[in-house]
């Protein structure tokens, strides 16, 4: 039976994710600012003064080679990065790359710019890149991932740091802001006016790695073909342009588990697109 869901739950769901995004953005920005303040003789005592590298889970990934071969961490990376890497992997194994859609501040900022882009370009927004080119460009993040891991292993230093828009975002007020990182950040944010999450789609090495968990995660986005009315709202809602309506289980490595396509959100039919463990057929039987 197809059941229309009301408008109220949609608002609540959107707020949940956005609130979590806001929480992590404010938290990380506050820590980054506090570190600068402490170094110049001020700062808030009860707030962490950890460096951005220390609270970046990707730092744990890039130091793995050094850890295995030398038993040491690369410069600027601390145990906290490895802990965060483990926690984010745990979440990814459970429900996919939720880090990307619920936590990553760079993703949140891109979404902010994309809202503006959507207002300007309306239905053309997120449809500018021809499908074939888009498909090809999405391999870019695996190239970046391979380069980062290789270059970091070779140099035993944080090579990627100077090109990392996430690092640049929280170093904008710093004297040693890397020009390359700032430029990439500017291009990313400009791109976000035309395309949803351009950095995540085409260049993010961490997203590339987390996306692989979509193949094995426990909770998967599942569509029930028996109740689906083929309205394609799920396709249009997906920021990563995944054709959810053509799948029963979303295993696409680009899925970021934002839940926009689900029946809680854009899907107009209750219990038709869900994040769940078992398939609809098994549940019904």
């Amino acid at each position, binding site marked *: 039976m197809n059941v229309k869901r009301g408008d109220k739950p949609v608002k*609540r*769901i959107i707020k*949940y*994710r956005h*609130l*979590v995004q806001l929480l992590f953005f404010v938290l990380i920005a506050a820590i980054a600012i506090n570190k*600068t303040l*402490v*170094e*110049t*003789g001020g700062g808030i*005592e009860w707030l*962490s003064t*950890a*460096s951005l*590298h*220390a*609270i970046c889970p990707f730092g744990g990934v890039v130091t793995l080679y050094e850890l295995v071969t030398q038993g*040491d961490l690369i*410069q*600027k990376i*601390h*145990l*906290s990065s*490895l*802990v*965060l890497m*483990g*926690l984010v992997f*745990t*979440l990814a194994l*459970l*429900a996919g790359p*939720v880090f990307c859609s*619920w*936590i990553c501040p760079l993703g949140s900022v891109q979404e902010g710019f994309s809202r503006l882009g959507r207002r300007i370009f309306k239905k053309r927004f997120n449809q500018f890149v021809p499908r074939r080119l888009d498909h090809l460009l999405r391999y870019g993040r695996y190239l970046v991932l391979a380069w980062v891991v290789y270059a970091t292993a070779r*140099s*035993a*230093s944080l090579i990627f740091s100077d090109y990392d828009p996430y690092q640049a975002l929280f170093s904008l007020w*710093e*004297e*040693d802001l890397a020009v390359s990182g700032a430029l990439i950040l500017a291009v990313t944010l400009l791109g976000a006016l035309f395309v949803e999450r351009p950095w995540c789609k085409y260049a993010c090495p961490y997203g590339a790695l987390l996306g692989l968990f979509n193949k094995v995660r426990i*909770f998967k986005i599942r569509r029930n073909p028996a109740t689906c009315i083929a309205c394609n709202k799920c396709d249009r809602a997906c920021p990563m342009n995944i054709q959810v309506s053509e799948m029963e289980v979303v295993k696409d490595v680009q899925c970021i588990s934002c*839940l926009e396509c689900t029946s*809680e959100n854009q899907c107009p039919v209750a219990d038709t697109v*869900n*994040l*769940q*463990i*078992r398939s609809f057929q098994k549940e019904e039987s």
Partner: protein
Amino acid sequence: MKMKSGMMVVTLLLVMFGGIFLADRLGLWATQNDQISSGGGGGSSQETLLVSDPSEIRGSTTFASLLESFPIDQSVLYAAFMIPESLDPALLRSGDLESLFEETPIEIGNESMKIFIALYLGLDIELEATGFPQSAVDLIIQEQPQLDEAVRSYLEENTVAAKPLENPEIEVEDHAAEEAEEDDEHLIQISGSTLFEDLLDMGLTVEALEDLFGEAYPGDQVRVKDYIEGLGLEYSTLKKSIEALMGGE
């Protein structure tokens, strides 16, 4: 079993913050490096200090912060970069080295400070092209006689015949103007290497210090930071109390 947004929020926060809490309890949550050091040049006591990674030193980091963060004496840092003793470590920033040594063929600046501290303390650092005064190189070699050949030749290549500007006070005074005007000079002179004797010189009395710590006066030559940490107290909190004590006098 379905996972809705509400459950996602709970799961996500539980995994992230619960995981961090658990890691902290297990002693796995470290956002800085723990290093064992003998206290650098002239330090007498063996101690375990929590120090930051030298590669994270920024141009805006004050010398006072450096002295608190690393087991290195002010005299060593000043001698390495030929900084006049009259310059206040709380106002002098690592990036100021650039203006102190404006006329060198290879720039002496924040990178020089990072690498100097790392090599002097025997810590790992990526060696980048940056200048060092002969005095800094001499101190590194004196402190780390086992320095390997590659590092020695790197230092040789990057040693510059440097002389600090005659009027560096001009640059430093600019920073002082940026600081709050009410900053009392006495309030900003406590660093990691400050002795109890220095506190007395700054105008504090033995009685006032005994009242503050609730212990007998430990002696002139005891480092304030060592003493506070030895009591198991928070250095930054006590430092503020001492500064407040000075401000009240």
